[in-house]
């Protein structure tokens, strides 16, 4: 809420806040091979989902305090494309410490996309976007 108060003060009257955050769904793990997209399972995004509820509560509190008026909400799918299973696993290890990928998911991905095979790993995530207006 403190951040939203500061943001409101920084905006000119009738200024806009664009709020983007991961939605309340776990990321889907897919493999694209031979023209087909096969869904293998999900990553555990419990922490992000919890953060979504906290952020939406703060957004609502800011609206209740008349700092902002919600004009529009929407959702979209954001896909990360990895050329190999290894590049996906490495990316998670480097940028998402704390995220554990189930060994069975990695094994299944390797079965479908062995080294040298044409295809990719797709990590698909739903995002929430809101446009709010500062009175």
């Amino acid at each position, binding site marked *: 809420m*403190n*951040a*939203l108060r*500061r*943001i409101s*003060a*920084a*905006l*000119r*009257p009738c*200024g*806009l*806040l*664009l*709020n*983007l*955050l*991961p939605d309340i769904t776990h990321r889907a793990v897919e493999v694209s091979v031979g023209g087909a997209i096969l869904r293998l399972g999900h990553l555990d995004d419990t922490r992000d989902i919890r953060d979504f509820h906290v*952020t939406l509560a*703060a*957004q609502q509190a800011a609206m209740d305090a008349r700092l902002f008026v919600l004009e*529009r909400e*929407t959702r*979209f*799918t*954001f*896909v*990360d*494309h*990895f*050329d*190999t299973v*290894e*590049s*996906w696993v*490495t*990316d998670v290890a480097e940028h998402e410490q704390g995220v554990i990928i189930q060994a069975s998911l990695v094994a299944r991905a390797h079965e479908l996309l062995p080294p040298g095979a044409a295809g990719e790993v797709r990590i698909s995530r739903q*995002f929430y*976007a809101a*446009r709010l207006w500062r009175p």
Partner: protein
Amino acid sequence: MAVVHDPEHAETRVIHELIDFSGTDVLEVGCGDGRLTRRYAARTRSVLALDPDAAAIEQARASLPEQLRHTVSFQVADITSLELPPAAFDVVVCSYSL
């Protein structure tokens, strides 16, 4: 190793559907490595992009195209402690940061 983020441009399409950035002064909170910044900055008058992660800001500065260097300013800062000029921005972009 190769990763491509959102080659479908779904995020870019949505942010431009929601916000007309033309000629705006923008504050971005939680800019990270500038990935999202680069998707809208060309239309703005100015962008001040903040992130408390110094390494991410360094990467954002290094990755910024030459033609945007007079428009975009990256700064290591936390929105909860930074003093901002009042009523200075037309748009604030909060990217997974509230």
